[in-house]
């Protein structure tokens, strides 16, 4: 499953972008741009939970998981991995 693409598109749609040609990469710290508002954090968490069907626990709530597209994708991949292993273990 491609994770980077939908996450990147979601962030792009929700930034308060004033210059349409602003450059940012999958490594850019989106919270250091000054282009997201305080509700964005909540929206992003809700988006990740519903889009990728994972649950973000209180202990997952760490800015280091959500700073950039690459970090978010790694976090989601890790969560999905854990979930898959869990269900396989139950099946076995």
């Amino acid at each position: 499953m491609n994770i980077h693409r939908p996450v990147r598109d979601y962030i792009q749609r929700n930034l308060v972008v004033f210059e349409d040609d602003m450059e940012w990469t999958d490594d850019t710290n989106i919270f250091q741009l000054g282009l997201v508002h305080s509700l964005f954090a909540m929206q992003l968490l809700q988006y990740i939970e519903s889009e990728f069907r994972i649950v973000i626990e209180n202990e997952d709530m760490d800015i280091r998981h959500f700073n950039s597209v690459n970090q978010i994708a790694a976090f989601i991949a890790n969560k999905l991995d854990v979930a898959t292993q869990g269900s396989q273990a139950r099946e076995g």
Partner: protein
Amino acid sequence: MSERIQAVKCVVWDLDHTLWDGILLEDREVNLRPGIAGIIRELDERGILQSVASRNEPDDVLHKLRMLEVETYFLYPQIHWEAKSHSIRRIAEQLNIGTDTILFIDDQPFERDEVRSLLPEVDCMPAEAYLELPMHPRIACNPVTAEGSARRAMYIADCKRKEEEAAFQGPADHFLRELQMEFAIFEADASDLQRAEELTVRTNQLNATGIPYSYDELAFYQSDPSHKLYMCELTDKYGSYGKIGLALVDTARPEGWHLKLLLMSCRVISRGVGTIFLNYIMRQAKQHGEQMTADFRLTGRNKQMFVAYRFAGFAGAINDGEEAQRLVNDLSAIQPYPVYVRVVEGRQPFIYESEGRH
């Protein structure tokens, strides 16, 4: 320790045989029950919002409320034939408050039971007890402040903002830019303490600990040299939202500043300014130490605030216990202020002019 009282934020009135003495559609001539006008004014001065839930014909009712000179007190009146629980839900949504902060007063046991069955958190009061309303503990705990009596006017301004926002073509975020918001942060003085107390009692969602502070406690911290008591005020092109935030910092600890409390009124949630106050305090703290600490308590209602702290870099374990827990921030990354808000230090000269005080 006394149990915490959750303040009522909105009283929802039934009309026939509750607000007035008869049934409008049958009697035509109805009058406010004795003492009601004074009670409505007193609730208003305490900053308690009021609305109406009545199964009736809207045109007749609105006309009557206008004749009785009480129409302006009621926000988002629900006059239709649907269930009262539905009306109460809609009022709570429009005002952006929890249904557990609503008190509903109605003469009919059936209506109170209907509300109770679907919304058990709503405080239901029989109409015959209306004279006791100002003494109700969840009402009397709302102090009379200048801020309180301007609250209704601010909700009306907010209603205008909502209409304009709905009509705005383009992404919602661009609307924020159009608002020309200015966020002023200043240290509280004695005249702010009542509002400060009120904020600790009334604010649930954007509140780091949910712990209320008394006027005397706040007065102590305000004058104590080892504490700083900050407040903030937001204004936009429509006017002021009032003093909407409070923060208490212990500045005397050797390891760095300690943030004991930070809260912000739910009135400004949709404005996306929640983290500015926290960022400002982190900036100040950085001038005084290598790190800062903060008290946080998960209350079941303040997840947004928890996310704000975490995303601002506050680390440390947290559980659902009764006691506040300590989070630590190494201040290595402080987010910039959003570009659509001007942040200013110091009290702004703008004073909100409330209705009827010209």
